[in-house]
């Protein structure tokens, strides 16, 4: 990559490797502590938007040629149990290969669900219709959170009691910006830190 022409004071993104393209761009990077939580919540949003999403996820994983971790529901569930906020937390962490596969899977599912995500994020939609959509989305997502997450955790309790739903909107924005190849790169970069 050539050197950026952007104003250095504003464009400096804290990255030490801003101008390098040679080699692995994620060399010297560590997985963020909240990566497994973020990934699990993104899949939960996909499940909210699509009924029987697990089947679709596994089928999609098969179609894009992902690893054995996606061969059946149990393996997939075990990966998701690395989220410490889950009822069935397994004290495990995701490997970088698993993160790559999950990012690819989320990105391609987000592409399929983009029209729905867009409808929820758009401010140009009729207000009443938008409110109804958000109400349905919130109810379904909260019921999934109640079912899968540890409700004794204060973070989950605050999510369930909060009416603003800032996190839910944030998750939808992440999904909308994760579509396609560029989106997958963006999502992957957001799951790592420069060490």
């Amino acid at each position, binding site marked *: *990559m050539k050197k*950026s022409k*952007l104003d250095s004071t504003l464009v400096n993104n804290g990255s030490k490797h*801003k101008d390098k393209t040679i080699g692995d*761009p994620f060399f010297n990077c560590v997985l963020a502590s909240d990566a497994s939580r973020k990934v699990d919540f993104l899949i939960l949003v996909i499940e909210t938007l699509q009924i029987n999403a697990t089947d679709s996820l596994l089928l999609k994983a098969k179609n894009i040629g992902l690893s054995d971790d996606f061969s059946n529901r149990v393996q997939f569930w075990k990966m998701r149990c690395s989220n410490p906020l889950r009822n069935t937390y397994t004290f495990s962490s995701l490997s970088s290969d698993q993160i790559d596969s999950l990012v690819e899977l989320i990105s391609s599912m987000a592409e399929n669900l983009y029209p729905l995500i*867009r409808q929820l994020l758009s401010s140009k939609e009729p207000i009443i219709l938008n409110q109804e959509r958000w109400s349905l989305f919130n109810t379904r997502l909260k019921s999934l959170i109640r079912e899968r997450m540890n409700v004794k955790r204060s973070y989950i309790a605050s999510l369930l009691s909060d009416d603003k739903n800032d996190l839910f909107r944030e998750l939808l924005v992440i999904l909308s*910006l994760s579509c396609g190849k560029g989106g997958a790169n*963006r*999502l992957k970069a957001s799951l790592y830190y*420069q060490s």
Partner: protein
Amino acid sequence: MINLSYRFDQNSSSLIISGMPDVSNGDSENTIGIVSSWTLKIIGSPLLEGEKEHLENLMQVIFLYSRSYISGIRKTFVSNKKIITICPFGLSHKLLLNSTKEGVNPLEIILDDSELSDLTRCLDLLRFDSRFNIQWDINEELPFSKKYIVKNLSNSNKNINFLFSIIIFLFSGSILVFVPTNDKYEIIETTKNSQSLFKQNE
């Protein structure tokens, strides 16, 4: 001379790029190697057009903003020569475009989240399109440093948990200071016992 034109549509955004193959670079007849013009139509705003440099500036700013936004960071980005600026505007985003021609007022476009993602996707399509043999001057998506994220997170109560824990520690510590120890009680007990033993011996 072959003049090619490709179009990228993404809901509210529509980008048309015109150009020609760079024969000196060995481009095929369907590949654009030299961009002659571009037009971008965002629904509800005027038609944007310009040269390759302007498009490159727009791509740089939009990609950086989207990269930051996906990490929860909302901050202003300005391109070189201050042609394009993007900044948060309430829940939406404000795109400010300054014309390179003199006497033309800056153009302001307000984008909501869905329009921002449409525009980002549209530019993504262009960036990874194999029909273009152009080296775009764009920053690669890379992880931020932890320090940068903490510094720029819009969440204002990020230090509240730490402050709250210190207050709890001081409060519980001060309560423990006032709790009387039972050393004195044990001494009285032992002296009472020794006194009773002494009386029994008498």
